[in-house]
């Protein structure tokens, strides 16, 4: 019996633990350690219409049980990934969630169309700034987010997840996206944060502020997944600070059907597989399956 198997928007995942966007690139760096097909899925680095150089360094710094990153969305652009990386990744037998973004709705759509042949799911990163909307991120503007979502839905036949940001209220955005036809949600993206360099009396990061990830934000992730689950019937890919099997089960209880592991992979490249094995062991000890846990904190005792 496979306790971990889970279906999500019509796609079968051998286990619910996937990599988080931006923390596993396109998988090539880790492919010599284990077959990528053993992962629940790989979420790719965010892909934009054209190459982006990214932010000035330092791009990362550590904080108590967390890290800040300001990579600045560096990527080679969709054409390079469609040429070099995505076909290779599908050949590995991996399930692939392609993370896409742009600076206006048509750009999101163009990327989605090009990556669709290689994508099991499309994840739309709404945390990027809306250049025509006063640079407020799409994620905090329900109407702008809905327009992006509709454009992406029209551009692909793959199920589309909207990735929500914890830096503003999520429920109004989620409602607008649901109305616009989104298939599911992923959350949380990073919390905005900052660290100061006492020697230079300046922010450490080249970009001044960055996104906080890692165990420090896990309680925020559990809460937001829990709140979203009470307000939607669509499936949820949860993430934020997951480092152990117990963390993954916390997110499952809150309502996550799939769980992504990001920051933990930097300290332990085997983390996604280790966490899946830990979950399997915890479930085996109770004779339960993953699906017995998804959203279970909401059911009457």
């Amino acid at each position: 019996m496979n306790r971990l198997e889970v279906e999500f928007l019509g796609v079968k995942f051998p286990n619910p633990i996937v990599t988080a966007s931006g923390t596993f690139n396109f998988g090539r760096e880790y492919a010599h350690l284990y077959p990528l097909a053993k992962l629940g899925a790989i979420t790719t680095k965010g892909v934009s219409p054209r190459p982006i150089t990214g932010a000035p360094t330092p791009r990362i710094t550590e904080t108590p049980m967390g890290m800040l990153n300001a990579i600045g969305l560096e990527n080679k652009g969709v054409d390079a990934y469609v040429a070099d990386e995505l076909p290779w990744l599908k050949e590995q037998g991996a399930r692939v969630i392609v993370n896409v973004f742009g600076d206006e709705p048509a750009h999101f759509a163009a990327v989605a169309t090009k990556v669709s042949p290689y994508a099991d799911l499309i994840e739309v990163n709404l945390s990027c700034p809306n250049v025509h909307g006063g640079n407020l991120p799409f994620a905090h503007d329900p109407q702008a987010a809905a327009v992006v979502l509709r454009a992406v839905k029209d551009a692909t036949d793959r199920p589309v997840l909207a990735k929500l940001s914890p830096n503003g209220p999520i429920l109004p955005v989620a409602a607008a996206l649901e109305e616009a036809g989104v298939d599911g949600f992923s959350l949380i993206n990073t919390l905005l944060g900052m660290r100061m360099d006492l020697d230079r009396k300046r922010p450490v990061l080249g970009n001044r502020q960055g996104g906080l990830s890692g165990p420090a934000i896990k309680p925020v992730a559990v809460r937001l997944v829990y709140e979203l689950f009470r307000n939607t019937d669509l499936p949820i890919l949860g993430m934020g600070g997951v480092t152990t099997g117990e963390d993954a089960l916390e997110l499952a209880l809150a309502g996550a059907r799939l769980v992504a592991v990001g920051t933990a992979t930097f300290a332990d490249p085997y983390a996604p597989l280790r966490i899946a094995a830990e979950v399997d062991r915890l479930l085996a000890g109770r004779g339960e399956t993953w699906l017995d846990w998804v959203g279970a904190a909401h059911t009457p005792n």
Partner: protein
Amino acid sequence: MTPQSLEVNAERPRWDDHELLLSENRPLGPHHLLRFEAPTLASRFRPGQFLNLNVPGHVLRRPLAVLRQEGDDLELVITPFGPGTRDLVNLPPGTRLRALAPLGNGFPAPEEDVALVSGGAGVAALLMTAAAALKSGRRVHVFHGAPGDEDVELIKASYGELGLEVEYYSEDGSYGRAGLPTAGLERLLADGVAVGVYSVGPYGLMRAAALLALEYDRPAYVSLDVHMACGVGACLSCAVLTKSGQKHACVDGPVFAAEEVVW
């Protein structure tokens, strides 16, 4: 550009996650020398490569050069700086750590005599190059700089063990010559001595050494110190602007030819 994939750069040794057992931890002035038993890493490091070491209680690993490797033993020099390195230098022998290794490209093998220009723990990244150069019969000139006399023990425990003489420069004049080690390099180059220049230390020092070498038309290499998360090419945090575009220090470096870097 994203880092070159492993496929493209086949001669890069495949890294993995290795266990290290801390066997000794002793202060060298403000620095610490940490010795580990690392049997699964025996003879795996080329000069200038590094590892990404976990620190208990910290979310990220820390990139550190390998000072020396003999059989199962492996030595690092760590200068306490922020929370992670402060915790590292306080670990008791017997602690088990994990390291992603070996990482990075390393220095090219010297094809002529060499001049080493170091500052602080930069010595760690240069010592294996010094040993290799000596072994292949090259002459090794060493210029080391520090604010004061705090690096004397470090020098003894590193270059000293190879029998090398070090021209030591202190900014405050408290030990060796007063001034910066690039003064020694400049003298050597001005004398027309044909050396390859290798420099690791604070950015300003590497930049000065690199510009001098370029001025005298000598090959020069530096190991750039960029904040890293994954250490293996996945997170894109370690961007370095080079004349052939953006590279990533953990896989395309940390060693770069002086003329490649946009200083």
